[in-house]
């Protein structure tokens, strides 16, 4: 049965049943059941993903697009099927618009280096929000350092929401790109991406969306969004590390210069000249993460077999429940309360540093993220050095929230 057929008849979503697909959730940490609330950093992998990778590596593996032998053909087919799965997942128009990368970071660096850099004259601008992840900041800093680009920062409101008018106002005649997260990895804010794209396009400016979080928590339709580039990473989508993808509009990709140089991305190499392959191969130098691509396909099939709206509603329910429960702690300040936000809860605790808090939660088996979340510009915006972040995935339950709340109470006992 194809993944497409599965999406037409979604199974009712049962988080308890889903949990049994994730072997790691059955283990104990310091003698306590694991409560994994750090999926925004990296999600756990269901056995369907692990099995698919193992079976592929054990039966069909060889290098892709190289040999004429049987296994090379099988591997190439599997690798290209994975590309088709990503296309379907993002509803892109063509497989040529899907470039495999190491992850979201490499996808954004690819756009910076191959699409934006050649356009930049000193004083040209990149518009981005203060809640971007470092992976959607540092590549633009490179262009500032090397070519004199100017970063135009769009602030968020105190509740973490991003106003489309503020983005619009930042786009001027010198803007070469708007680079914006679909969903904030710290605040959970979901940005009005479609509206941003339409405003930017009205001024002739392309938009890159960092979809590393956004693609996990809702359906993405790059054609409906009309976004120019959309970056995703596999390991947050319940897939393996080491693989991600860049969606890019065909016309952009065709006009772009190569990224890395090496095998696979060329048409012909002579002593004096080199010509390049068409997209997507032009941007996939070297042996790609083949086994990981198979794992990513399995992860997307796993997700697509579920009713994504029901999964999102489940995650949002957990967030709402946690948000309500933490109100009992008057020493805890939630950062980011935008309407329609995704299932991420960040907070600061009075007199308790996030690392001390996270250390104590850890000893209760509760895994959360503490720190700046690769979003130091946002930390500065909210005048905090670090926060504690709780993030929910499809396999979490209200019992996980209860364990978190109990552990927070213990932390207060020890530190407070």
């Amino acid at each position: 049965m194809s993944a497409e057929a599965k999406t037409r008849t979604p199974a009712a979503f049962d988080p308890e049943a889903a949990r049994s697909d994730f072997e790691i959730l059955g283990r104990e940490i310091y003698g306590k059941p694991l409560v994994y609330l750090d999926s925004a950093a990296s999600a756990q992998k269901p056995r369907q993903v692990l099995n698919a990778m193992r079976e592929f590596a054990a039966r069909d593996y060889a290098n892709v697009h190289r040999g004429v032998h049987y296994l090379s053909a099988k591997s190439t087919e599997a690798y290209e099927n994975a590309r088709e799965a990503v296309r379907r997942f993002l509803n892109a128009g063509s497989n040529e618009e899907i470039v495999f990368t190491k992850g979201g970071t490499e996808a954004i660096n690819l756009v910076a280096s191959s699409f934006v850099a050649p356009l930049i004259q000193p004083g040209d601008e990149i518009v981005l929000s203060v809640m971007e992840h470092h992976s959607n900041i540092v590549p633009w800093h490179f262009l500032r350092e090397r070519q004199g680009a100017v970063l135009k920062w769009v602030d968020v409101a105190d509740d973490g929401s991003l106003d489309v008018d503020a983005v619009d106002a930042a786009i001027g005649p010198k803007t070469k790109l708007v680079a914006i997260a679909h969903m904030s990895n710290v605040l959970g804010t979901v940005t009005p991406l479609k509206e941003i794209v339409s405003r930017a396009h009205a001024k002739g400016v392309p938009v890159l969306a960092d979809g590393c979080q956004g693609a996990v928590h809702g359906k993405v339709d790059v054609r409906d969004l009309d976004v120019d580039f959309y970056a995703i990473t596999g390991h947050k989508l319940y897939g393996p590390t080491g693989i991600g993808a860049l969606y890019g509009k065909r016309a952009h990709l065709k006009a772009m210069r190569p990224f890395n140089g090496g095998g696979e991305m060329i048409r012909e190499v002579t002593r004096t000249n080199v010509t390049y392959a068409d997209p997507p191969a032009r941007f996939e130098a070297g042996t790609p993460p083949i086994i990981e691509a198979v794992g990513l396909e399995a992860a997307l099939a796993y997700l697509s077999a579920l009713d994504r709206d029901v999964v999102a509603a489940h995650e949002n329910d957990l967030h709402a429940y946690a948000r309500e429960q933490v109100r009992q702690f008057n020493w805890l300040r939630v950062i980011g309360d935008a309407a329609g936000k995704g299932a991420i809860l960040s907070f600061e605790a009075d007199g308790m540093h996030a690392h001390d808090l996270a250390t104590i939660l850890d000893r209760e088996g509760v895994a959360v993220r503490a720190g700046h979340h690769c979003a130091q510009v946002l930390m500065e915006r909210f005048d905090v050095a670090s926060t504690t972040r709780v993030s929910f995935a499809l396999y979490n339950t209200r019992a996980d929230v209860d364990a978190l709340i109990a552990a927070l109470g213990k932390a207060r006992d020890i530190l407070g």
Partner: protein
Amino acid sequence: MAMDDSLRELYQDVILDHSRHPRHFGRLEGATHVGEGHNPLCGDRVKVYLLLDRDNRISDIKFEGKGCAISLASASLMTDMVVGRSLEEAEKLMGGFLHLVKGEDVGSDLNEDDRERLDVMAGVSAFPMRVKCATLAWHTMKSALEGGATARSE
């Protein structure tokens, strides 16, 4: 309530007291040596100021910065212990401290009193992810004395 003993040892009263009321906290005017430290894991920063006298003794030391209980307590304890000492003695203390928080033998360089005072930080060794928090101030002091590039808590 059966509280995790290693947590209790880590966050014992002496540590919490140091972190809430850090000694030698603030800016030292007229410092002869200044160093800045940065823990890239959490974004915490610490600045250490030293005043050396003509005999290369640490006649005064202060620190400022934001940090977790472990890093603040460690900085506070450090400033308390090194003030009035020679550079050689401070270095010995640091060596002993680094061994201690990594769960290694402290060696025979330190006297009984110093060992006992440092020992409140021994609980860190059960939390390998937090060793950097404990060592940041010490590394920063060292880099200040060596003339100051930003220290990283390695």
